[in-house]
């Protein structure tokens, strides 16, 4: 009897542990797309002085919205997540090294990333034409597009340092 009970318990535990991993619904996948941490970035080279060059993906109902989302993701990645290494460039750390910076300074970033907000000032060059070919994926509801951006990384860092959001390297000295 004990052996049967033990076997039953192990089976139940195994199911409980395995089930959630397979239970990603469409709704959850959508949350993942919309997640502020889910930046899809591919470095393409080393930028000129104080800039970072990479390819970034964005989502939207139409191509224009997806491009704007990609621009927002490009700046947000530089601030919160950092950039991966590749294409000859080394990994770049995030400007805000403080954990949960996006929540601590929520009001600031809400204004910073509003439609037509200040974040656009730090995107220097993008391919202005609508992305095409492999950089434009039609999905069931909307588009996933990739754009090539040059983010003015040093200027962005200086702005955040001046606004007291990021810490200066020489602060305290």
């Amino acid at each position, binding site marked *: 009897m004990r052996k049967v009970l033990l076997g039953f318990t192990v089976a139940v535990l195994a199911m409980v542990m395995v089930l959630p991993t397979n239970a990603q619904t469409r709704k959850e996948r959508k949350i993942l797309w919309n997640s502020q941490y889910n930046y899809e970035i591919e470095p393409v080279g*080393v930028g000129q*002085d104080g800039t970072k060059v990479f390819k970034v993906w964005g989502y939207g109902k139409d191509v224009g919205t997806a491009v704007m989302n990609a621009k927002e993701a490009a700046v947000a990645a530089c601030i919160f997540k950092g950039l991966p290494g590749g294409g000859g460039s*080394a990994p770049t750390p995030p400007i805000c090294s403080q954990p949960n910076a996006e929540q601590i300074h929520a009001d600031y970033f809400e204004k910073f990333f509003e439609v037509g907000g200040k974040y656009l000032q730090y995107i220097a060059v993008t391919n202005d034409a609508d992305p095409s070919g492999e950089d434009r994926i039609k999905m069931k509801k909307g588009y996933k597009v990739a754009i090539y951006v040059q983010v003015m990384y040093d200027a962005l860092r200086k702005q955040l340092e001046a606004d007291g959001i990021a810490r200066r390297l*020489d602060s*305290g000295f």
Partner: protein
Amino acid sequence: MKRILLSISLLALAVIAFGQAKKPIIMVVPSDQYCISRGYKMEFNNQGLKQVLPDYKTALQTDPDLRLVITKMGQIMADRGFPLKDLEQELKNLEQERAESSMLTSSSSGSEMAESPIDALKRVAKADIIMDLDFEVKRQGPQKYIVFNLKGLDAYTAKQVSGVAGAGSPSTSASPELLLEEAVLSHMDNFNAGLMRHFEDMFANGREVKVQIKVWANWGENLESEFGSDGKELSTIIEDWFADNCVEGRFNLSDATENFMKFEQVRIPMMRTDEKGRQRAVDTRSFVSDLRKYLNGMGIPSKLYMRGLGEAWLILGEK
């Protein structure tokens, strides 16, 4: 919780309003491997033992790639609020200073300036954080790529406080100069992030320094001699003082005999309030000076010898 927040705010306000911590001096120095492998070296016969030392002056005068990398790094660091001390200029200044010191005499009596052998020995290029640089342009068939290695070393604790290393992507068309510039631009943000972590740790847990206690040979006492009303050994008295005065009592007595004590990983506060109520930055010299005063009160005279921002010796027995 409110009290803790209030005290932290007051402390931060005090630091901002009254003073700032001592800023470390940073200098780029080409690594020994870089200099020696390219022939920028000096060879000595040290009592039958062949000794090879890097010749920085020749390296800086003849290697354009090295100058390019140092200039680029200096530009980035200055932009981040840390202008670098230039090794080439510092070597020139030291030569000039040496020449002027030997010629300078008093106008009234013709007296020379007082200089002990140790004063002369101290006239060398120094920095608190050394950016130890090494790079090489490598070839793979028709392609060229850069292998870049940069270490941030604390000159006193000899600890690596930051570092980046890696190979760039190979190119057939780009010139080595362009590849070198790319290597610097690509790695410096990461290097500075490491430096930032080091500074944050410094402000949270105190500056990490090294202190040595030594004894003059003619003193007649040593670190095992007993002092005070309760007859404590001097080494125990000194250890207790460190426990009371280090940030959170953090230090490590790494080695000791009756003649010396070597304290490492000593965490000293960044700021303190002086007798006039002003906030003053603390360096190892001022920290150990408090120990000197404490021991003086027990009838133990001593000489304080400074070895930079992060290391000091206290030699017991006399000034």
